[in-house]
Protein backbone atom coordinates (compact mmCIF):
# COMPACT_ATOMS: atom_id res chain seq x y z
CA UNK A 1 0.00 0.00 0.00
CA UNK A 2 2.90 2.30 0.48
CA UNK A 3 3.87 1.94 -3.17
CA UNK A 4 1.32 4.42 -4.53
CA UNK A 5 0.74 7.78 -2.89
CA UNK A 6 -2.27 7.83 -0.59
CA UNK A 7 -5.53 9.28 -1.84
CA UNK A 8 -6.12 11.00 1.48
CA UNK A 9 -3.57 11.98 4.03
CA UNK A 10 -3.86 13.78 7.34
CA UNK A 11 -0.56 15.31 8.38
CA UNK A 12 -0.36 16.24 12.05
CA UNK A 13 -3.90 17.51 12.01
CA UNK A 14 -5.14 19.19 15.18
CA UNK A 15 -8.55 20.54 15.98
CA UNK A 16 -9.25 22.87 18.87
CA UNK A 17 -12.79 23.98 19.69
CA UNK A 18 -12.96 27.28 21.49
CA UNK A 19 -16.33 28.00 23.01
CA UNK A 20 -16.70 31.58 24.08
CA UNK A 21 -19.53 32.47 26.36
CA UNK A 22 -19.95 35.64 28.39
CA UNK A 23 -18.54 34.10 31.52
CA UNK A 24 -15.81 31.79 30.38
CA UNK A 25 -13.78 30.45 27.54
CA UNK A 26 -13.57 26.71 27.23
CA UNK A 27 -11.08 25.01 25.00
CA UNK A 28 -11.50 21.44 23.80
CA UNK A 29 -8.61 19.65 22.14
CA UNK A 30 -10.58 17.31 19.91
CA UNK A 31 -7.63 16.15 17.78
CA UNK A 32 -3.91 16.30 18.50
CA UNK A 33 -1.47 15.92 15.67
CA UNK A 34 -3.33 13.12 13.98
CA UNK A 35 -1.63 11.55 11.00
CA UNK A 36 -3.50 9.05 8.87
CA UNK A 37 -3.48 7.85 5.29
CA UNK A 38 -6.04 6.13 3.11
CA UNK A 39 -4.87 4.55 -0.13
CA UNK A 40 -6.98 4.22 -3.26
CA UNK A 41 -9.53 1.49 -2.79
CA UNK A 42 -8.57 0.98 0.81
CA UNK A 43 -10.85 0.83 3.82
CA UNK A 44 -9.41 2.37 6.96
CA UNK A 45 -11.34 1.90 10.16
CA UNK A 46 -11.10 4.52 12.86
CA UNK A 47 -12.00 3.05 16.22
CA UNK A 48 -12.48 4.81 19.51
CA UNK A 49 -15.00 5.37 22.23
CA UNK A 50 -17.44 8.23 22.31
CA UNK A 51 -15.78 11.63 22.51
CA UNK A 52 -12.43 10.48 21.19
CA UNK A 53 -12.60 12.72 18.13
CA UNK A 54 -13.86 10.36 15.42
CA UNK A 55 -16.65 12.59 14.16
CA UNK A 56 -14.32 15.56 14.22
CA UNK A 57 -11.98 13.65 11.94
CA UNK A 58 -14.90 12.81 9.63
CA UNK A 59 -16.07 16.41 9.48
CA UNK A 60 -12.57 17.65 8.74
CA UNK A 61 -12.32 15.25 5.83
CA UNK A 62 -15.79 16.24 4.64
CA UNK A 63 -14.66 19.86 4.85
CA UNK A 64 -17.46 20.79 7.18
CA UNK A 65 -14.85 22.38 9.40
CA UNK A 66 -11.21 23.42 9.13
CA UNK A 67 -8.20 22.03 10.95
CA UNK A 68 -6.62 24.24 13.63
CA UNK A 69 -3.22 22.88 12.68
CA UNK A 70 -1.63 20.50 10.22
CA UNK A 71 -2.64 19.71 6.68
CA UNK A 72 -5.06 17.48 4.86
CA UNK A 73 -3.94 16.21 1.47
CA UNK A 74 -6.27 14.86 -1.15
CA UNK A 75 -5.11 13.28 -4.38
CA UNK A 76 -1.65 14.82 -4.20
CA UNK A 77 -2.72 18.34 -3.17
CA UNK A 78 -3.04 20.09 0.15
CA UNK A 79 -6.54 21.29 0.87
CA UNK A 80 -6.73 25.04 0.82
CA UNK A 81 -9.02 26.64 3.35
CA UNK A 82 -9.68 29.58 1.03
CA UNK A 83 -10.61 27.29 -1.82
CA UNK A 84 -12.85 28.66 -4.53
CA UNK A 85 -16.40 27.43 -5.03
CA UNK A 86 -15.36 25.39 -8.03
CA UNK A 87 -12.59 23.54 -6.29
CA UNK A 88 -14.85 22.89 -3.31
CA UNK A 89 -17.62 21.56 -5.53
CA UNK A 90 -15.15 19.22 -7.22
CA UNK A 91 -14.06 17.96 -3.81
CA UNK A 92 -17.66 17.43 -2.77
CA UNK A 93 -18.24 15.33 -5.84
CA UNK A 94 -15.33 13.10 -4.98
CA UNK A 95 -15.61 12.87 -1.18
CA UNK A 96 -18.94 11.91 0.32
CA UNK A 97 -20.15 11.19 3.81
CA UNK A 98 -22.66 8.87 5.45
CA UNK A 99 -23.95 10.22 8.74
CA UNK A 100 -24.41 8.45 12.01
CA UNK A 101 -28.02 9.30 12.74
CA UNK A 102 -30.43 8.27 9.97
CA UNK A 103 -33.21 10.21 11.68
CA UNK A 104 -31.54 13.60 11.67
CA UNK A 105 -29.53 13.30 8.47
CA UNK A 106 -32.57 13.42 6.18
CA UNK A 107 -34.65 16.58 5.88
CA UNK A 108 -38.21 15.85 6.97
CA UNK A 109 -39.70 18.07 4.27
CA UNK A 110 -37.97 16.40 1.33
CA UNK A 111 -38.74 13.14 -0.40
CA UNK A 112 -36.34 10.27 -0.89
CA UNK A 113 -36.12 11.19 -4.57
CA UNK A 114 -35.14 14.74 -3.71
CA UNK A 115 -32.39 13.62 -1.35
CA UNK A 116 -30.83 11.25 -3.85
CA UNK A 117 -31.48 13.41 -6.91
CA UNK A 118 -29.95 16.63 -5.62
CA UNK A 119 -26.27 15.57 -5.85
CA UNK A 120 -26.91 14.45 -9.44
CA UNK A 121 -28.45 17.83 -10.26
CA UNK A 122 -25.86 19.89 -8.38
CA UNK A 123 -22.94 18.24 -10.10
CA UNK A 124 -24.82 18.02 -13.41
CA UNK A 125 -24.03 14.34 -13.69
CA UNK A 126 -27.25 13.35 -15.37
CA UNK A 127 -29.39 15.44 -17.70
CA UNK A 128 -32.50 16.69 -15.96
CA UNK A 129 -35.84 14.98 -16.32
CA UNK A 130 -36.44 11.33 -17.02
CA UNK A 131 -32.77 10.33 -17.05
CA UNK A 132 -32.29 11.75 -13.57
CA UNK A 133 -35.39 10.03 -12.25
CA UNK A 134 -34.15 6.74 -13.69
CA UNK A 135 -30.72 7.23 -12.14
CA UNK A 136 -32.30 7.92 -8.75
CA UNK A 137 -34.24 4.67 -8.99
CA UNK A 138 -31.10 2.76 -9.97
CA UNK A 139 -29.24 4.21 -6.99
CA UNK A 140 -32.05 3.27 -4.62
CA UNK A 141 -31.97 -0.29 -5.92
CA UNK A 142 -28.18 -0.37 -5.60
CA UNK A 143 -28.56 0.21 -1.87
CA UNK A 144 -31.26 -2.42 -1.58
CA UNK A 145 -34.44 -0.35 -1.74
CA UNK A 146 -36.55 -2.40 -4.17
CA UNK A 147 -38.36 -1.32 -6.21
CA UNK A 148 -36.75 2.11 -6.36
CA UNK A 149 -39.80 3.65 -8.00
CA UNK A 150 -41.86 3.08 -4.89
CA UNK A 151 -39.44 4.87 -2.61
CA UNK A 152 -38.90 7.96 -4.71
CA UNK A 153 -41.89 9.92 -3.48
CA UNK A 154 -41.77 8.73 0.13
CA UNK A 155 -40.91 11.07 2.98
CA UNK A 156 -38.36 10.14 5.64
CA UNK A 157 -41.05 9.64 8.30
CA UNK A 158 -42.54 6.87 6.17
CA UNK A 159 -39.30 4.84 6.33
CA UNK A 160 -37.66 2.66 8.95
CA UNK A 161 -34.26 3.53 10.38
CA UNK A 162 -32.55 0.97 8.18
CA UNK A 163 -34.28 2.27 5.07
CA UNK A 164 -33.35 5.82 5.94
CA UNK A 165 -29.72 4.88 6.35
CA UNK A 166 -29.85 3.25 2.91
CA UNK A 167 -31.22 6.49 1.49
CA UNK A 168 -28.28 8.27 3.13
CA UNK A 169 -25.92 5.79 1.48
CA UNK A 170 -27.62 6.23 -1.91
CA UNK A 171 -27.24 10.00 -1.58
CA UNK A 172 -23.55 9.61 -0.79
CA UNK A 173 -23.10 7.27 -3.75
CA UNK A 174 -24.96 9.51 -6.19
CA UNK A 175 -21.98 11.58 -7.34
CA UNK A 176 -19.95 8.38 -7.72
CA UNK A 177 -17.33 9.48 -5.17
CA UNK A 178 -13.78 8.24 -4.74
CA UNK A 179 -13.99 8.39 -0.97
CA UNK A 180 -16.79 7.51 1.41
CA UNK A 181 -16.62 8.70 4.99
CA UNK A 182 -18.93 6.55 7.07
CA UNK A 183 -19.35 7.93 10.59
CA UNK A 184 -20.69 5.08 12.70
CA UNK A 185 -23.27 4.24 10.02
CA UNK A 186 -24.73 1.32 11.94
CA UNK A 187 -24.60 2.48 15.54
CA UNK A 188 -28.14 3.86 15.54
CA UNK A 189 -29.66 0.86 13.78
CA UNK A 190 -31.22 -2.27 15.19
CA UNK A 191 -28.61 -4.93 15.76
CA UNK A 192 -30.36 -7.15 13.21
CA UNK A 193 -29.84 -4.55 10.48
CA UNK A 194 -26.22 -3.72 11.18
CA UNK A 195 -24.70 -6.60 9.30
CA UNK A 196 -26.85 -5.85 6.23
CA UNK A 197 -25.60 -2.28 6.08
CA UNK A 198 -22.01 -3.37 6.64
CA UNK A 199 -22.28 -5.92 3.85
CA UNK A 200 -23.81 -3.32 1.58
CA UNK A 201 -20.82 -1.04 2.20
CA UNK A 202 -18.41 -3.90 1.54
CA UNK A 203 -20.23 -4.67 -1.72
CA UNK A 204 -19.92 -1.08 -2.81
CA UNK A 205 -16.30 -1.14 -1.95
CA UNK A 206 -15.68 -4.06 -4.31
CA UNK A 207 -18.01 -2.96 -7.10
CA UNK A 208 -17.09 0.71 -7.06
CA UNK A 209 -13.48 0.59 -5.86
CA UNK A 210 -14.29 3.35 -3.43
CA UNK A 211 -11.93 4.23 -0.59
CA UNK A 212 -13.52 4.39 2.80
CA UNK A 213 -12.98 5.83 6.24
CA UNK A 214 -15.13 3.57 8.34
CA UNK A 215 -15.69 5.00 11.79
CA UNK A 216 -16.92 2.78 14.58
CA UNK A 217 -16.62 2.25 18.30
CA UNK A 218 -16.57 -1.50 17.82
CA UNK A 219 -13.31 -3.29 17.09
CA UNK A 220 -14.85 -6.45 15.69
CA UNK A 221 -16.94 -4.38 13.28
CA UNK A 222 -13.79 -2.56 12.24
CA UNK A 223 -12.05 -5.86 11.64
CA UNK A 224 -14.98 -7.04 9.52
CA UNK A 225 -14.91 -3.93 7.37
CA UNK A 226 -11.38 -2.68 7.10
CA UNK A 227 -7.96 -3.37 5.66
CA UNK A 228 -6.32 -1.29 8.33
CA UNK A 229 -7.45 -0.12 11.74
CA UNK A 230 -6.44 3.01 13.61
CA UNK A 231 -7.32 3.26 17.28
CA UNK A 232 -8.03 6.72 18.60
CA UNK A 233 -8.17 7.88 22.19
CA UNK A 234 -8.84 11.46 23.22
CA UNK A 235 -7.80 12.88 19.89
CA UNK A 236 -4.63 10.84 19.55
CA UNK A 237 -3.94 7.82 17.36
CA UNK A 238 -2.74 5.20 19.81
CA UNK A 239 -2.11 2.33 17.47
CA UNK A 240 -2.47 1.58 13.81
CA UNK A 241 -1.95 -1.65 11.95
CA UNK A 242 -3.41 -3.94 9.30
CA UNK A 243 -6.68 -5.28 10.66
CA UNK A 244 -5.53 -8.86 11.20
CA UNK A 245 -2.31 -7.75 12.89
CA UNK A 246 -4.12 -5.40 15.22
CA UNK A 247 -6.65 -8.04 16.19
CA UNK A 248 -4.02 -10.71 16.74
CA UNK A 249 -1.14 -8.75 18.20
CA UNK A 250 -2.39 -5.54 19.73
CA UNK A 251 0.46 -3.87 21.55
CA UNK A 252 -1.07 -0.76 23.04
CA UNK A 253 -2.67 -1.32 26.45
CA UNK A 254 -5.70 0.66 25.30
CA UNK A 255 -6.19 -1.48 22.21
CA UNK A 256 -6.00 -4.56 24.39
CA UNK A 257 -8.67 -3.20 26.68
CA UNK A 258 -10.86 -2.41 23.70
CA UNK A 259 -10.34 -5.88 22.31
CA UNK A 260 -11.31 -7.53 25.58
CA UNK A 261 -14.40 -5.37 25.77
CA UNK A 262 -15.43 -6.09 22.20
CA UNK A 263 -15.01 -9.86 22.38
CA UNK A 264 -17.01 -9.89 25.59
CA UNK A 265 -19.91 -7.96 24.14
CA UNK A 266 -20.43 -7.47 20.44
CA UNK A 267 -21.84 -4.20 19.36
CA UNK A 268 -22.50 -2.24 22.48
CA UNK A 269 -19.28 -0.35 22.35
CA UNK A 270 -16.38 -0.45 24.74
CA UNK A 271 -17.09 0.25 28.35
CA UNK A 272 -13.54 0.37 29.53
CA UNK A 273 -14.21 2.92 32.21
CA UNK A 274 -16.33 5.97 32.83
CA UNK A 275 -16.99 8.67 30.26
CA UNK A 276 -14.16 10.72 28.86
CA UNK A 277 -13.77 13.99 30.66
CA UNK A 278 -12.17 16.98 29.01
CA UNK A 279 -8.48 16.42 28.71
CA UNK A 280 -6.29 18.84 30.57
CA UNK A 281 -4.23 20.20 27.68
CA UNK A 282 -1.40 21.18 29.97
CA UNK A 283 -0.84 17.64 31.21
CA UNK A 284 2.41 16.56 29.67
CA UNK A 285 1.93 12.81 29.75
CA UNK A 286 0.19 10.14 27.76
CA UNK A 287 -3.55 10.77 27.42
CA UNK A 288 -4.26 7.21 28.50
CA UNK A 289 -2.06 7.44 31.60
CA UNK A 290 -4.90 7.78 34.16
CA UNK A 291 -6.57 4.57 32.99
CA UNK A 292 -3.58 2.57 31.82
CA UNK A 293 -3.07 -0.78 33.55
CA UNK A 294 0.61 -0.93 32.64
CA UNK A 295 1.68 2.64 33.15
CA UNK A 296 5.21 3.64 34.04
CA UNK A 297 6.47 6.78 35.74
CA UNK A 298 7.62 8.23 32.43
CA UNK A 299 4.08 8.02 31.05
CA UNK A 300 2.88 10.91 33.20
CA UNK A 301 5.85 13.06 32.25
CA UNK A 302 6.18 12.99 28.48
CA UNK A 303 3.83 12.26 25.65
CA UNK A 304 4.83 9.19 23.73
CA UNK A 305 5.41 9.79 20.05
CA UNK A 306 4.02 7.58 17.36
CA UNK A 307 6.61 5.03 16.36
CA UNK A 308 6.78 2.22 13.86
CA UNK A 309 7.34 -1.14 15.40
CA UNK A 310 10.52 -2.74 14.20
CA UNK A 311 10.06 -5.74 11.91
CA UNK A 312 6.45 -4.86 11.27
CA UNK A 313 5.96 -2.83 8.17
CA UNK A 314 2.74 -1.05 8.94
CA UNK A 315 2.32 -1.27 12.66
CA UNK A 316 2.51 2.00 14.50
CA UNK A 317 2.04 2.59 18.19
CA UNK A 318 2.14 5.53 20.51
CA UNK A 319 3.30 4.07 23.80
CA UNK A 320 6.42 4.42 25.91
CA UNK A 321 6.66 0.67 26.32
CA UNK A 322 7.32 0.26 22.62
CA UNK A 323 9.29 3.38 22.20
CA UNK A 324 12.80 2.41 23.05
CA UNK A 325 16.29 3.45 22.34
CA UNK A 326 16.51 2.41 18.72
CA UNK A 327 15.53 5.89 17.49
CA UNK A 328 12.06 5.30 16.13
CA UNK A 329 10.86 7.42 13.30
CA UNK A 330 8.31 9.77 14.65
CA UNK A 331 5.10 11.44 13.55
CA UNK A 332 5.89 13.93 10.84
CA UNK A 333 8.36 12.10 8.67
CA UNK A 334 7.34 8.59 9.45
CA UNK A 335 6.29 6.67 6.39
CA UNK A 336 6.08 2.93 6.32
CA UNK A 337 9.07 1.58 4.47
CA UNK A 338 8.62 -1.88 3.12
Amino acid sequence: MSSSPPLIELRNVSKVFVNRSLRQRSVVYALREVSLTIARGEVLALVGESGSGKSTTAQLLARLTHPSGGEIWFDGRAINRQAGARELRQYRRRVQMIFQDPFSSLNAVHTVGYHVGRPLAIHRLVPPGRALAAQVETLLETVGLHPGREFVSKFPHQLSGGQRQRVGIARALAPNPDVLIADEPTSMLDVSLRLDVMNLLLDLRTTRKVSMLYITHDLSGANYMADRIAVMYRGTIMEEAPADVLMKDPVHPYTRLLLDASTADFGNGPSVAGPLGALDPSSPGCPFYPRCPSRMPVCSETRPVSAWIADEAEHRVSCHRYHDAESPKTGRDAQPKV
Partner: protein
Amino acid sequence: MIDAPSASVSSRPRRVGQWLLVVRPLLRNAKARTGVAIFLFFGLVALLAPILSPYNPHLTIFAPGASPSAAHWLGTTQSGQDILSQMIWGTRQPLEIALGAGLLTTLIAVGIGISAGLFGGVYDEILMLITNIFLILPGLVVVIVISSYLSSANNLMISLVITVTSWPWGARVLRAQTLNLKSKDFVKAAIVAGEMRFRLAFFEVLPNMTSLVASNFFFTCLYAVVTAASLQFLGLGNINTVSWGSILYWANNSQALMIGAWWWFVPPGLAIGLLGAAFALINFGIDELTNPRLRREAK
Protein backbone atom coordinates in the same frame (compact mmCIF):
# COMPACT_ATOMS: atom_id res chain seq x y z
CA MET B 1 -35.41 27.19 -12.84
CA ILE B 2 -32.02 25.64 -13.23
CA ASP B 3 -32.89 22.75 -11.02
CA ALA B 4 -35.72 21.35 -13.01
CA PRO B 5 -34.40 17.80 -12.72
CA SER B 6 -34.99 17.41 -9.03
CA ALA B 7 -38.29 19.16 -9.31
CA SER B 8 -39.48 16.60 -11.78
CA VAL B 9 -38.49 13.82 -9.46
CA SER B 10 -40.17 14.98 -6.37
CA SER B 11 -41.51 18.44 -6.05
CA ARG B 12 -45.12 17.81 -6.87
CA PRO B 13 -45.87 15.23 -4.20
CA ARG B 14 -43.73 17.23 -1.82
CA ARG B 15 -45.69 20.41 -2.25
CA VAL B 16 -49.03 18.69 -1.81
CA GLY B 17 -47.70 16.78 1.18
CA GLN B 18 -46.37 19.90 2.79
CA TRP B 19 -49.61 21.76 2.42
CA LEU B 20 -51.58 18.96 3.95
CA LEU B 21 -48.99 18.71 6.67
CA VAL B 22 -49.48 22.34 7.65
CA VAL B 23 -53.08 23.14 6.87
CA ARG B 24 -54.99 20.04 7.80
CA PRO B 25 -53.91 19.77 11.45
CA LEU B 26 -54.35 23.51 11.78
CA LEU B 27 -57.97 23.27 10.72
CA ARG B 28 -58.50 20.39 13.11
CA ASN B 29 -57.54 22.72 15.95
CA ALA B 30 -60.62 24.46 17.35
CA LYS B 31 -58.92 27.77 18.14
CA ALA B 32 -57.29 28.03 14.76
CA ARG B 33 -60.53 27.08 13.06
CA THR B 34 -62.40 29.85 14.86
CA GLY B 35 -59.68 32.35 13.97
CA VAL B 36 -59.69 31.33 10.33
CA ALA B 37 -63.50 31.57 10.21
CA ILE B 38 -63.54 35.13 11.61
CA PHE B 39 -60.75 36.13 9.26
CA LEU B 40 -62.56 34.66 6.24
CA PHE B 41 -65.76 36.44 7.30
CA PHE B 42 -64.05 39.83 7.31
CA GLY B 43 -62.23 38.96 4.12
CA LEU B 44 -65.53 38.24 2.38
CA VAL B 45 -67.09 41.44 3.70
CA ALA B 46 -64.12 43.42 2.39
CA LEU B 47 -64.28 41.76 -1.01
CA LEU B 48 -68.03 42.10 -1.37
CA ALA B 49 -68.24 45.62 0.07
CA PRO B 50 -69.66 47.09 -3.17
CA ILE B 51 -72.49 44.54 -3.08
CA LEU B 52 -73.11 44.42 0.67
CA SER B 53 -72.94 48.10 1.42
CA PRO B 54 -76.40 49.71 1.35
CA TYR B 55 -75.09 53.22 0.58
CA ASN B 56 -71.98 55.06 -0.48
CA PRO B 57 -70.10 55.54 2.82
CA HIS B 58 -69.09 59.09 1.93
CA LEU B 59 -72.61 60.39 1.24
CA THR B 60 -73.67 62.96 3.81
CA ILE B 61 -77.29 63.21 2.70
CA PHE B 62 -79.01 61.42 5.56
CA ALA B 63 -80.51 62.84 8.74
CA PRO B 64 -77.47 63.33 11.01
CA GLY B 65 -77.09 61.61 14.37
CA ALA B 66 -79.94 59.15 13.86
CA SER B 67 -80.16 56.01 15.98
CA PRO B 68 -80.49 52.56 14.36
CA SER B 69 -83.54 52.10 12.14
CA ALA B 70 -84.70 49.90 9.27
CA ALA B 71 -83.11 52.26 6.75
CA HIS B 72 -79.87 52.68 8.74
CA TRP B 73 -79.19 49.54 10.77
CA LEU B 74 -76.35 51.20 12.65
CA GLY B 75 -77.68 54.74 12.52
CA THR B 76 -75.91 57.72 11.00
CA THR B 77 -73.01 59.95 11.92
CA GLN B 78 -73.14 63.55 13.08
CA SER B 79 -72.53 64.60 9.48
CA GLY B 80 -75.22 62.30 8.10
CA GLN B 81 -73.29 59.25 6.81
CA ASP B 82 -74.60 55.67 7.01
CA ILE B 83 -72.50 53.91 9.67
CA LEU B 84 -73.19 50.36 8.42
CA SER B 85 -71.84 51.29 4.99
CA GLN B 86 -68.80 52.81 6.64
CA MET B 87 -68.26 49.66 8.72
CA ILE B 88 -68.46 47.46 5.63
CA TRP B 89 -66.11 49.56 3.50
CA GLY B 90 -63.94 50.16 6.55
CA THR B 91 -63.09 46.44 6.67
CA ARG B 92 -60.71 46.86 3.77
CA GLN B 93 -58.09 49.11 5.27
CA PRO B 94 -57.33 47.15 8.48
CA LEU B 95 -57.13 43.93 6.46
CA GLU B 96 -54.83 45.43 3.87
CA ILE B 97 -52.57 47.02 6.45
CA ALA B 98 -52.48 43.86 8.56
CA LEU B 99 -51.62 41.58 5.65
CA GLY B 100 -49.19 44.12 4.18
CA ALA B 101 -47.31 44.63 7.42
CA GLY B 102 -47.42 40.89 8.15
CA LEU B 103 -45.95 40.07 4.77
CA LEU B 104 -43.26 42.77 4.80
CA THR B 105 -42.22 42.01 8.37
CA THR B 106 -42.06 38.30 7.73
CA LEU B 107 -40.02 38.76 4.55
CA ILE B 108 -37.46 40.93 6.32
CA ALA B 109 -37.37 38.73 9.41
CA VAL B 110 -36.89 35.59 7.32
CA GLY B 111 -34.19 37.16 5.15
CA ILE B 112 -32.20 38.59 8.02
CA GLY B 113 -32.80 35.87 10.60
CA ILE B 114 -31.95 32.92 8.38
CA SER B 115 -28.95 34.47 6.65
CA ALA B 116 -27.46 35.75 9.92
CA GLY B 117 -27.89 32.36 11.58
CA LEU B 118 -26.68 30.37 8.61
CA PHE B 119 -23.66 32.41 7.56
CA GLY B 120 -22.51 33.56 10.99
CA GLY B 121 -19.31 35.48 11.56
CA VAL B 122 -19.00 39.22 11.06
CA TYR B 123 -22.08 39.27 8.83
CA ASP B 124 -24.14 37.85 11.69
CA GLU B 125 -22.66 40.26 14.22
CA ILE B 126 -23.43 43.33 12.11
CA LEU B 127 -26.99 42.20 11.36
CA MET B 128 -27.65 41.41 15.00
CA LEU B 129 -26.29 44.79 16.07
CA ILE B 130 -28.73 46.51 13.71
CA THR B 131 -31.53 44.23 14.86
CA ASN B 132 -30.88 45.01 18.50
CA ILE B 133 -30.82 48.74 17.85
CA PHE B 134 -34.24 48.53 16.19
CA LEU B 135 -35.42 46.27 18.98
CA ILE B 136 -34.87 48.84 21.71
CA LEU B 137 -36.67 51.60 19.80
CA PRO B 138 -40.02 52.22 21.51
CA GLY B 139 -42.33 50.87 18.80
CA LEU B 140 -45.52 52.88 19.17
CA VAL B 141 -43.65 56.15 19.74
CA VAL B 142 -41.65 55.67 16.55
CA VAL B 143 -44.76 54.81 14.60
CA ILE B 144 -46.57 57.89 15.93
CA VAL B 145 -43.65 60.19 15.17
CA ILE B 146 -43.24 58.90 11.62
CA SER B 147 -46.93 58.91 10.81
CA SER B 148 -47.41 62.45 12.10
CA TYR B 149 -45.39 63.47 9.05
CA LEU B 150 -47.56 61.38 6.74
CA SER B 151 -50.90 63.17 6.59
CA SER B 152 -51.88 61.52 3.32
CA ALA B 153 -50.42 58.11 3.98
CA ASN B 154 -51.78 55.21 1.96
CA ASN B 155 -52.12 51.70 3.32
CA LEU B 156 -48.75 50.59 2.01
CA MET B 157 -46.98 53.44 3.80
CA ILE B 158 -48.69 52.65 7.07
CA SER B 159 -47.72 48.98 6.63
CA LEU B 160 -44.12 50.09 6.07
CA VAL B 161 -44.10 52.25 9.18
CA ILE B 162 -45.41 49.36 11.26
CA THR B 163 -42.84 47.03 9.69
CA VAL B 164 -39.99 49.29 10.79
CA THR B 165 -40.78 48.53 14.41
CA SER B 166 -41.94 44.94 14.14
CA TRP B 167 -39.31 43.07 12.10
CA PRO B 168 -36.54 42.72 14.73
CA TRP B 169 -38.54 40.34 16.94
CA GLY B 170 -39.06 37.84 14.19
CA ALA B 171 -35.50 38.20 12.94
CA ARG B 172 -34.14 37.24 16.34
CA VAL B 173 -36.45 34.28 16.80
CA LEU B 174 -35.79 32.94 13.31
CA ARG B 175 -32.05 33.39 13.71
CA ALA B 176 -32.10 31.37 16.92
CA GLN B 177 -34.05 28.60 15.23
CA THR B 178 -31.68 28.68 12.25
CA LEU B 179 -28.71 28.22 14.59
CA ASN B 180 -30.49 25.25 16.07
CA LEU B 181 -31.23 23.68 12.67
CA LYS B 182 -27.76 24.44 11.36
CA SER B 183 -26.24 21.98 13.80
CA LYS B 184 -28.54 19.21 12.55
CA ASP B 185 -27.04 16.54 10.35
CA PHE B 186 -29.42 17.13 7.45
CA VAL B 187 -27.96 20.60 6.92
CA LYS B 188 -24.44 19.19 7.08
CA ALA B 189 -25.47 16.47 4.67
CA ALA B 190 -26.84 19.08 2.26
CA ILE B 191 -23.53 20.97 2.45
CA VAL B 192 -21.62 17.78 1.73
CA ALA B 193 -23.97 17.12 -1.20
CA GLY B 194 -22.79 20.47 -2.58
CA GLU B 195 -25.78 22.73 -1.91
CA MET B 196 -25.03 26.45 -2.11
CA ARG B 197 -26.10 29.07 0.41
CA PHE B 198 -29.36 30.05 -1.24
CA ARG B 199 -30.59 26.47 -1.42
CA LEU B 200 -29.47 25.79 2.14
CA ALA B 201 -31.43 28.79 3.42
CA PHE B 202 -34.63 28.37 1.45
CA PHE B 203 -34.85 24.63 0.75
CA GLU B 204 -33.30 23.08 3.83
CA VAL B 205 -33.71 25.50 6.74
CA LEU B 206 -36.82 27.55 5.92
CA PRO B 207 -39.23 24.65 5.27
CA ASN B 208 -38.40 23.38 8.76
CA MET B 209 -39.64 26.51 10.46
CA THR B 210 -42.92 27.13 8.69
CA SER B 211 -44.82 27.27 11.96
CA LEU B 212 -42.45 29.89 13.39
CA VAL B 213 -42.71 31.93 10.22
CA ALA B 214 -46.50 31.61 10.21
CA SER B 215 -46.84 32.62 13.82
CA ASN B 216 -44.53 35.57 13.20
CA PHE B 217 -46.81 36.57 10.34
CA PHE B 218 -50.04 36.33 12.32
CA PHE B 219 -48.59 38.05 15.36
CA THR B 220 -47.52 40.96 13.17
CA CYS B 221 -51.02 41.09 11.66
CA LEU B 222 -52.46 41.40 15.15
CA TYR B 223 -49.97 44.11 16.06
CA ALA B 224 -50.70 45.95 12.81
CA VAL B 225 -54.49 45.91 13.28
CA VAL B 226 -54.19 47.40 16.74
CA THR B 227 -51.47 49.90 15.78
CA ALA B 228 -53.22 51.12 12.63
CA ALA B 229 -56.47 51.61 14.55
CA SER B 230 -54.65 53.43 17.35
CA LEU B 231 -52.99 55.76 14.85
CA GLN B 232 -56.26 56.67 13.23
CA PHE B 233 -58.00 57.04 16.52
CA LEU B 234 -55.32 59.58 17.41
CA GLY B 235 -56.01 61.37 14.14
CA LEU B 236 -52.70 60.37 12.54
CA GLY B 237 -52.34 59.03 9.07
CA ASN B 238 -55.20 59.83 6.74
CA ILE B 239 -58.46 60.19 8.69
CA ASN B 240 -60.53 60.92 5.64
CA THR B 241 -60.32 57.35 4.43
CA VAL B 242 -63.08 55.03 5.58
CA SER B 243 -61.85 52.53 8.13
CA TRP B 244 -62.79 51.22 11.55
CA GLY B 245 -60.11 53.44 13.07
CA SER B 246 -61.37 56.60 11.39
CA ILE B 247 -64.98 55.82 12.37
CA LEU B 248 -63.74 55.66 15.95
CA TYR B 249 -61.87 58.95 15.48
CA TRP B 250 -64.96 60.80 14.20
CA ALA B 251 -67.14 59.19 16.83
CA ASN B 252 -64.77 60.39 19.49
CA ASN B 253 -64.51 63.78 17.81
CA SER B 254 -68.27 64.15 17.88
CA GLN B 255 -68.50 62.99 21.46
CA ALA B 256 -70.55 59.94 20.57
CA LEU B 257 -69.79 58.51 23.99
CA MET B 258 -71.16 61.57 25.79
CA ILE B 259 -74.38 61.58 23.81
CA GLY B 260 -74.76 57.81 24.19
CA ALA B 261 -74.53 57.01 20.46
CA TRP B 262 -73.26 53.45 21.13
CA TRP B 263 -74.11 52.38 17.55
CA TRP B 264 -71.32 54.67 16.42
CA PHE B 265 -68.38 53.52 18.54
CA VAL B 266 -69.27 49.99 19.63
CA PRO B 267 -69.29 48.33 16.16
CA PRO B 268 -65.83 49.56 15.05
CA GLY B 269 -64.36 48.77 18.46
CA LEU B 270 -65.86 45.31 18.35
CA ALA B 271 -64.67 44.70 14.79
CA ILE B 272 -61.09 45.69 15.63
CA GLY B 273 -61.19 43.41 18.65
CA LEU B 274 -62.63 40.52 16.65
CA LEU B 275 -60.10 40.75 13.83
CA GLY B 276 -57.28 40.99 16.36
CA ALA B 277 -58.70 37.99 18.19
CA ALA B 278 -58.85 36.05 14.93
CA PHE B 279 -55.12 36.52 14.38
CA ALA B 280 -54.42 35.68 18.02
CA LEU B 281 -56.52 32.50 17.81
CA ILE B 282 -54.72 31.30 14.68
CA ASN B 283 -51.47 31.93 16.51
CA PHE B 284 -52.60 29.94 19.57
CA GLY B 285 -53.56 27.13 17.22
CA ILE B 286 -50.10 27.08 15.65
CA ASP B 287 -48.54 27.14 19.12
CA GLU B 288 -50.59 24.18 20.23
CA LEU B 289 -49.61 22.24 17.14
CA THR B 290 -45.91 22.82 17.55
CA ASN B 291 -45.67 22.67 21.31
CA PRO B 292 -46.37 19.09 22.36
CA ARG B 293 -46.95 20.06 25.97
CA LEU B 294 -49.76 22.42 25.00
CA ARG B 295 -51.15 19.87 22.58
CA ARG B 296 -51.56 17.30 25.30
CA GLU B 297 -53.33 19.80 27.52
CA ALA B 298 -55.63 20.73 24.67
CA LYS B 299 -56.81 17.11 24.33
